[in-house]
C-alpha cells in the first residue's frame, strides 16, 4: 500500500487529495486565507485524519498552485498547468483541451494521452479575465457563488458590460440593478464577458476535441453554457472540477514516488 498527496494552494481556495494506487481516497478544500503555510498544514491534517494515517505513511507529496512554494512538507513543487493536465486526463483520458478557470487567471491547455502538456496559454493578470470577476459580481448582487450559474441561465437578455475592468464592472452592475435590470441578465452578461475573454485565449492556440473544463469555474453551469455557446462545443465537466489540479499533483506524486521507491529497492 502506498499513499500519495497532492496539494494545490490556490489564490482563493486550497485543495488537497490523497490517492492510493491511482484512486482518490480523500480530499479536502479550505479557503486559502492569507497564510498559505498554515492552510497547507491544516489541509494535510484534515486529509490524514480522513484516512486515519500518520504523516509518515504518505510516500510522496507534490505541491502546486499559486502558493505551492509555501508548502513546507512537500517533496516537490510542480507547475499547476502540468498538474491540471495530468488530473483531467486521469478523469477523462480522451480530453485534448482543457479550460482551467481559476481565481487568478484562466488558462487553456492542450494535452495528449497521459496528460502530457503539448501547448498552453495563460490570461493576463487582470481580474476581469479570471473567475474572480464572477465572484466580484456575485458579491455585489448578494447572490451565493454557487447560485449564479443556474440563475444566469434564466436570462433572455444578457447585458453587455461597457468596461473591461472587474472593479468598474462591479459599479456598472450596481447601476444596472438600480435601473431595474434583472440580476439574471447581469449575471448572464458577466458570464458572457468572461467567456469572450476565454475564447480569445483559445483562438491563439487552436484546439482539439475532446474538451473539458476544470478549476472552480467548472462548478458554474452558467459559465460552462456561455463558453459552449461562444465556441460551439461541448464541455466535459469532471465531478469535482476544483480538485483536478490537486488530483493531478497526487498522480504525479505517484509516478515520481513510485520511481523513488523502486530505486530504493534496487539500491
Amino acid at each position: 500500500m502506498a499513499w500519495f498527496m497532492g496539494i494545490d494552494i490556490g489564490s482563493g481556495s486550497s485543495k488537497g487529495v490523497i490517492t492510493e494506487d491511482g484512486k482518490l481516497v480523500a480530499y479536502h478544500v479550505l479557503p486559502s486565507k492569507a497564510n498559505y503555510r498554515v492552510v497547507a498544514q491544516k489541509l494535510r491534517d484534515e486529509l490524514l485524519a480522513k484516512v486515519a494515517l500518520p504523516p509518515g505513511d504518505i510516500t510522496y507529496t507534490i505541491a502546486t498552485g499559486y502558493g505551492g512554494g509555501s508548502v513546507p512538507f512537500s517533496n516537490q513543487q510542480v507547475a499547476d498547468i502540468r498538474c491540471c493536465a495530468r488530473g483531467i486526463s486521469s478523469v477523462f483520458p480522451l480530453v485534448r483541451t482543457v479550460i482551467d478557470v481559476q481565481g487568478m487567471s484562466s488558462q487553456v491547455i492542450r494535452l495528449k494521452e497521459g496528460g502530457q502538456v503539448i501547448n498552453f496559454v495563460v490570461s493576463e493578470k487582470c481580474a476581469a479575465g479570471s473567475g474572480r470577476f464572477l465572484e466580484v459580481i456575485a458579491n455585489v448582487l448578494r447572490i451565493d457563488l454557487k447560485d449564479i450559474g443556474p440563475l444566469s441561465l434564466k436570462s433572455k437578455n444578457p447585458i453587455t458590460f461597457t468596461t473591461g475592468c472587474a472593479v468598474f464592472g462591479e459599479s456598472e452592475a450596481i447601476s444596472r440593478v438600480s435601473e431595474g435590470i434583472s440580476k439574471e441578465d447581469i449575471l448572464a452578461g458577466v458570464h458572457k464577458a468572461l467567456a469572450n475573454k476565454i475564447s480569445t485565449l483559445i483562438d491563439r492556440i487552436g484546439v482539439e476535441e475532446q474538451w473539458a473544463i476544470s478549476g472552480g469555474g467548472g462548478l458554474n453551469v452558467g459559465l460552462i453554457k456561455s463558453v459552449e455557446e461562444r465556441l460551439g462545443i461541448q464541455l466535459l465537466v469532471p465531478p469535482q472540477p476544483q480538485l483536478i489540479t490537486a488530483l493531478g499533483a497526487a498522480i504525479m506524486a505517484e509516478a515520481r514516488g513510485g520511481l523513488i521507491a523502486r530505486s530504493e529497492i534496487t539500491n
Partner: protein
Amino acid sequence: MTEKERKGLDRVREIYQDRAHRAKELKAEGKQVMGYLCLYPVLEMLTAVDLAPYRILGDMEEPITKADACLPTVVCPFIRSALDLGLKGKYDFLDGVVMAHICDVGEKTSHIWRTYLNPSYFYFIDTPHTVHKAAQQQLKEQLKDFKKTLESFTGRELSLDKLKQAIKTYNRQRALVRELYDLRKPDPPLISGAETLQVMVALMSIPVDEGIDLLRQVISEVKEGKNGPPKKPARLLVWGSIIDNTALIRMIEELEANVVIDDTCVGSRAYFPNVELTDDPLDGLVYRYLVGLKCPRTFRESVFGETKKDYIKDLESRFGYIKDYAKEWNVNGVILQSVRYCDIHGYEVPGLRDYLDHIGLPNIYLEHDYSEAALAPLRTRAQAFLEVIG
C-alpha cells in the same frame, strides 16, 4: 428602385453598410477583383489591366480573434483587424492581393497574409523609405516587374495607352473628390465629416468609373445643401492614422464641432495628390506614389542632403501643407489621432504639435484602440478639447 438606380448618398450608405456587395456582383459578372492594402499599390496599373481594385480595410465593430494566433497584440490594431477578417474568410472573394511596404507591421502582415492565405495572385511592392532619385528608380524597376506579373496573371496586355487612360480616369476622380471637399469650406459645411468618410470608403469599394458617377451624384445632392450639418463653433482638421469607420468622426460631430478637412489615408491623403502624365507614365506614377503621397511612413526632409539643419524649416517642409489646409478650410482646431502602437504616426506627434503651436492652431492628440466599444472614453477628451478652444 433597383440598386443601380439608387442615387448619391443613399447609394453611398448602402455601399458603406455592405462594402463587398458590388465587388461580389462584379465577380459574378466575370470581372476579377484585386484587393490591396494601404495606399501604396498602384491602382492605375490594376485598372489598366481591367482588374477591379478593392481596398482591404479592417472592421472596428468585429472583435479580433483569429489574428492573435499569428500577430502579437502589441501591434497596430487596424492591421490586426484587417488580417483577422482575411483569416476569417471575409476576403475570400478576392482574386488576388497586392500589398506594399507601408510600415513595418504592414510589411510583416503582407508576408503573413501570403503565408496563411496564399491567394492565387500576390505581389509585394517594397516601397522605399526615402525619396532620393535612386529610390525612385528602384520603385520604377519594381513596377515594371509588377506589370509583367499582372499581364501574366490576367493574360491581358497592360499597354501604355491603357495606362495613360487609367491615369486620366483616376485624376478625374481625384478632382471630383477635391470638389466634394470644397463643399466643406463654407460655414456650416454642406456635408459632414462622417458622411464624407462614408463616401471615401464607398469609392474604395467600387471601380473607379462607377466612383466617378457616384461622386457626381453626391456632389449635386450636397450642393442642394438640404441636409448639411448645422453651424458649430469648432471647425476641425483631423490628422493621423487610418480611420475607416465613421464612429470616431461621428462622435466628434455629435459634439460642438464639424470636421471640415482631414489628413488621413481614407481621405485627402489618398485623393489629393494627382499623377502627372509623363512620357513614360511609370515616371509620373513613381513620383506620385513615392514623393506625392504625404504619409509619414516616408522619410522626407526640407532640403535633400543639406549639411545644416533648421528645425522649424524642417517642420515647415514636412507639414506646410497642413497649414494650407487649415487656411483654405478655415480650421480653428486640430485633432491628431492615431491607433495605438502606430509608430509611424506616433513619432510624428511632438513635431507636428510643435508646428501647430508655432502657427497658432490649438491641437490635441488622441490615441485609440480601433474598436467602436473603446471609443467612449475619448468622448470626454474630445469634448474637453472643444471647451478649450471655446
